[in-house]
């Protein structure tokens, strides 16, 4: 019982849930200085830095970045993979944990899904703009009968990316929207302000909670979850193919798919914590996103972190075991080259730092968890940096080795997208229920009504 209560703290009723969650949105007075300042800064990046960068990029060509031959892929692809990775937590939490009947997911899935959508948006910008001519890339990458009588080339991992990422985005969006419909209805009915009423009524589409609807709704929701699970796994697998399929030393590693997926989850949960912790503090959601949740997420971070770390070690092992002169040269380069600091920092961020989460104390210490998440987020970016440009700097023919030095525009675009992400997240928190109301009620009902199966469920939850 005590166990269970930790999923929802304070003695909540259906009505109180509505208030706790709904008022964040309906009572706009709750958004105070912290929200405004953060949002203000974010919008500078989202509405000024990012557009400016893109304009200059399109005007000049990608020469404004640091890319060169041999380093054809620099920051843009690093950031792309980083964002996609972050975008994985959402659907993973909603889908996989749903299938695993992890009720603790209920209070964070909506939030995580939103994060997914926006992260994938940010990620999507990079492949499009890194050609320097998005107008061409945009329509030549889509298969449709054209007057040139030519088609995309389906053997290319980039083509797979196009399908994987767009599918992932679409499905996540649908999943997210379906989840929102009943809550829109709630807000519609709760709202007093006429404008708000209509604003929520339209997306609610006339939801009235009929049991027939609930019946089909639950079927669909469950199957969607079932579909999303392999989707989530496939997307980052396919992203990892961009590298694993090539013959570039440091890229053609068979371990990439699993360890990219693990990395994605790793990064994703880090980002969820990074955002959830302040939000729950800010909007009095402590009762719904409890220490229990944070504890579990920390555990998942620890697990995936270990998988990723294992991946790093495997890379080194391959490099040594293959006996390939090129591979060993690459390892030398990572260990001692001019960018060695990036490699060792990566090892610290993703390998060493998370180990503190072994201790339950640390897992329940908000500042520590938050800091670790922050470190991990940086670490995951470094991982992509180490894999992508650093591998490209070394070649089969030493004559073509070159350094890669990012420029101002590399960074401005990166921070621009971060700004965009935060910008969107804050809008979301302000105008949409950041916790699934009806699922919380369902949970409350289950917890309150019959305890027997519930404690099992929670038991399952612990033993995940």
């Amino acid at each position, binding site marked *: 019982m005590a166990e269970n209560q930790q999923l929802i703290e304070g003695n909540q*009723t*259906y*009505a109180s849930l*509505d208030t706790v969650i709904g008022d964040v949105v309906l009572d706009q007075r709750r958004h105070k200085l912290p929200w405004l300042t953060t949002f203000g800064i974010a919008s500078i990046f989202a509405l000024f830095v990012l557009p400016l960068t893109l304009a200059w990029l399109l005007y000049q060509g990608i020469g404004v970045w640091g890319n060169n031959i041999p380093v054809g892929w620099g920051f843009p692809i690093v950031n792309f993979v980083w964002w996609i990775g972050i975008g994985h937590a959402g659907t993973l939490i909603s889908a996989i944990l749903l299938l695993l009947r992890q009720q603790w997911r209920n209070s964070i899935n909506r939030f995580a899904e939103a994060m997914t959508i926006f992260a994938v948006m940010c990620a999507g910008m990079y492949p499009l703009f890194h050609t320097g001519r998005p107008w061409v890339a945009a329509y030549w990458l889509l*298969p449709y009968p054209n007057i040139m*009588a*030519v*088609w*995309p*080339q*389906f*053997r290319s991992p980039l*083509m*797979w990316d196009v*399908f*994987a990422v767009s*599918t992932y985005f*679409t*499905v996540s969006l*649908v*999943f997210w929207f*379906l989840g929102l419909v*009943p809550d829109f*209805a*709630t807000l*519609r*009915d*709760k709202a007093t302000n006429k404008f708000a009423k209509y604003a929520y*009524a*339209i997306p609610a*589409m*006339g*939801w*009235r*909670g*009929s*049991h*027939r*609807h*609930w*019946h*089909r*709704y*639950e*079927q*669909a929701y469950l*199957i*969607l979850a079932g*579909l*999303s699970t392999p*989707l989530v796994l*496939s997307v980052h697998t*396919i992203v990892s*193919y961009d590298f694993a399929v090539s013959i570039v030393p440091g890229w053609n590693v068979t371990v990439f798919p699993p360890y990219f997926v693990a990395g994605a989850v790793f990064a994703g949960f880090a980002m969820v914590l990074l955002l959830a912790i302040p939000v729950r503090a800010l909007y009095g959601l402590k009762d719904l996103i409890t220490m229990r949740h944070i504890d579990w997420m920390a555990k998942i971070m620890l697990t995936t972190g270990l998988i990723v770390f294992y991946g790093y070690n495997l890379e080194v092992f391959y490099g040594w075991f293959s006996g390939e002169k090129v591979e060993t040269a690459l390892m030398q380069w990572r260990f001692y080259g001019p960018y060695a600091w990036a490699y060792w920092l990566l090892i610290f961020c993703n390998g060493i730092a998370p180990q503190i989460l072994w201790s339950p104390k640390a897992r329940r210490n908000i500042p520590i968890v938050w800091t670790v998440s922050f470190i991990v987020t940086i670490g995951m970016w470094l991982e992509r940096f180490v894999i992508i440009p650093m591998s490209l700097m070394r070649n089969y023919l030493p004559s073509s080795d070159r350094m890669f030095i990012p420029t101002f525009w590399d960074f401005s675009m990166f921070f621009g997208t971060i700004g965009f992400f935060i910008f969107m997240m804050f809008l979301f928190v302000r105008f949409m229920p950041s916790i699934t*109301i*009806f699922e919380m*009620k*369902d949970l409350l*009902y289950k917890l309150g*009504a019959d305890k027997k199966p519930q404690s099992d469920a929670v038991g399952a939850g612990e033993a995940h």
Partner: protein
Amino acid sequence: MSHAPIAPKIYGMVAEFETPDQLVHAASRAKEFGYTSIDGHSPFPIHGMSEATGFKCNLVPWIFLVGGILGGLTGIALESYVSILDLPLEIGGKPLFSLPSFFPIMYECTILFSALAGAIGMMALNGFPRPYHPIFDCPGFERASQDRFFLAIEADDPLYSEIETRRFLAGLEPINISVVEEEE
């Protein structure tokens, strides 16, 4: 429009309950009593309602399945047509039909089509979007999406009658009972 005032069309009679369990109990009672067009309304899915009202509909999974199959076929068909028939190119010495490279896209198409089909199908089956519904006229119904549970017995039910139905519902100790009219 005719001159004689016509009696407003009745949608049905709605009873409001405190708890989910009451609603389920009421629903099953109504079923036993013989009512067929019953509709329960709750802020969250209540397991047992469908059984209680004897509502069955398993179309949704089939829609997902068909969508998925179609998607997969579309994917592989597109790739094969393009790579073998319409634009046969030697790409890095790979065979024209290189299944391993075609698989990912086929796979993604499967999921995409299936998901869209399912989601849209579900909405269609539920008749959404439907911003207007007579039951919204039911007093206090806004709480149906918050913390109250409603059982509606629709007027088109053969057993429906102002008096009988009201008496029956009253027997279930609802918070209140109201008759809902339907706008033309």
